[in-house]
């Protein structure tokens, strides 16, 4: 293992319960990502504190709030499930199961289709916060979690996959979750595209939306790409067996940038995830090729 990678890993292993920035109150998303990163680099034994944090953050209904002290909204629940399923033993199985129950009950709000918006507003995915519309990232996280627990064929997973495909912009890529608005095609962004493509690994798409987004994404990144966007892009491409030769040098560059600036554990965890020698974020789980209905 390269020295910089080992240094990053040691840093996360020593403090896996972490916030978005150095010194910040711990939060569920960076802590879950840290636990997943440790597992993917063979350091699961260092992840218990993170997994315990997520367990302590779990609400009685199975959801996990954004911070242990902030029970709502509960969009990190899917990431917590992913982290628990990577635990070296079965002690978090009940946490994952309760999380699954909550996840399957949570739904984004829909509305009748309108020509003002380009996407299919009737499809159900997951919202950031209860009582609101479904958006790309929480839906993709939920799909990843459901696949990880063997629910690839669940109707909610299938509908969410359709939603993610539908929300890809015609020229490739996606943003937070709108394609066109009042007839205007909107801008794609790297991070949500990477996350959506991670969730769409192994999915068939006759319309070619996934292929177009993969092309757009691979042409949109460089070592100058900001950290979390670059990491999710590499994770998303790798999930489709597109491994860039420059990945590690680029990640080393952004790691040095993080180290010299905000020292964000959240970004460091994502760098580790992007650098992991695995085929996807949830590669511990063998996904079968699923054909969209």
């Amino acid at each position, binding site marked *: 293992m390269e020295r910089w990678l080992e240094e990053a890993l040691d840093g996360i292993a020593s403090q896996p319960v972490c*916030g*978005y*920035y150095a010194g*910040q*109150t711990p*939060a569920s998303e960076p802590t879950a990502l840290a636990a997943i990163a440790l597992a993917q680099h063979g350091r699961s034994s260092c992840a218990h504190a993170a997994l315990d944090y997520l367990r302590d953050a779990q609400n009685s209904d199975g959801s996990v709030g*954004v*911070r242990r002290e*902030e029970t*709502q*909204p509960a*969009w990190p629940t899917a990431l917590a499930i992913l982290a628990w399923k990577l635990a070296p033993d079965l002690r978090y199985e009940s946490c994952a199961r309760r999380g699954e129950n909550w996840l399957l009950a949570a739904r984004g*709000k*829909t*509305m009748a289709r*309108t020509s*003002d*918006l380009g996407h299919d*507003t009737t499809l159900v995915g997951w*919202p*950031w*916060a209860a*009582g*609101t*519309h479904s*958006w790309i*990232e929480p839906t993709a996280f939920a799909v990843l979690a459901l696949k990880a627990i063997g629910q690839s064929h669940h109707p909610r997973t299938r509908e969410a996959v359709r939603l993610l495909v539908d929300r890809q912009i015609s020229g490739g890529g996606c*943003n*937070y979750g*709108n394609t066109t*608005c*009042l007839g*205007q095609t*909107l*801008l794609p*962004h*790297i*991070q*949500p595209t990477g996350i959506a493509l991670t969730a769409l690994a192994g999915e068939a798409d006759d319309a070619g939306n996934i292929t177009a987004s993969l092309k757009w994404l691979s042409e949109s990144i460089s070592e100058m*790409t*900001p*950290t*979390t*966007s670059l990491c999710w892009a590499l994770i998303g491409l790798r999930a489709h067996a597109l491994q860039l030769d420059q990945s590690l040098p680029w990640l080393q560059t952004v790691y040095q940038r993080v180290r010299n600036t905000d020292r964000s554990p959240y970004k460091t965890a994502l760098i580790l995830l992007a650098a992991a020698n695995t085929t996807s974020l949830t590669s511990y789980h063998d996904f079968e090729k699923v054909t969209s209905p």
Partner: protein
Amino acid sequence: MSVSELERTKANVSTHELSTCQVNRRTLLAGSAAVAIGVSGWSAIRHALAPRAPVFIARNQSYDSRLERTLHDGLVSVGILPASYQGKRVLLKPNLVEPSRKIPHMTTHPAMILAAAEVFRRAGAEVVVGEGPGHIRDTEMALVESGVAEALHSADLRFADLNYEETRWTKNSGGMCGLAGFHFPRSVVEADLVVSLPKMKTHHWVGVTCAMKNLYGVIPGIKYGWPKNVLHHNGIPQTVYDINASLPKTIGIVDAIECMEGDGPIMGSAKWMGLVLVGTNLAAVDATACRLMDVTPEAVSYLRLAADRLGPIANGRVDQRGEAWESLASSFQVLDKPHLQALRPRPGIKVS
């Protein structure tokens, strides 16, 4: 934009919503007086008691070193002495909703941020730049694409990522939407002054976005989503009003130099105005921005709510400082959509 954003913004602000306005002591006193004097005297009293606010306009501006002087003069002319913020915490809130190098006229220019920071720093204030971009989760991307990262680095300015900071719940002082309160980021709650530093733009749902709507960006994405859909589902005009009513002391400094018209706030076209606005009351600032864009302020739903509750929007109650708006107004293109028809005082330029 969200589903509910669409639904809510198309709806007019109802009579019921208007009737739920805050009743303050001044209103009650004025009401008592009106009973005593009689209805005929009421309108005169109401006019005399109605709030007034100053708004400064500077013309012939560009993104250069003279901006700092302009902002200083503007602040002084509206009654803000930067020196009074010595040792105080000042939060500058630019608009970095969805930055793109290809669309620099979408976001507050870095030179505006640096000039505002320098005015307050020279006065001894502790200045922080803070934003919670509404459409992207990668805040570093927002800072890089907008050019603000480089500017912050060059000036050694601290940035507060409002999307991910710890939050404190604050009671909703406006009462127009259904939310009992807001989770404001720590940097916002602890600020002695929040400076809304928007770009003057048209907006495809609500008509105009300027100093008031820019404060959507103090709402943390980690709690409200990307986009901040909880706000949309509670009504854009109502939540714009309530956020403004619930924040600590605010002022507005508007980047109206290179603006956006047409399909704002993201995809519109650049329009050069060369103006800077400064004001102590954001409703008055935004009403003036509307007039400069040839938009009827009363047709902008959140301004209609704010009128005489959060501040004056009537032309006669805004005390113009610096340049008069009348000679500087220029029609901004607005989308040719039914929900935007009322924006124009007369048939204006539309784009399909």
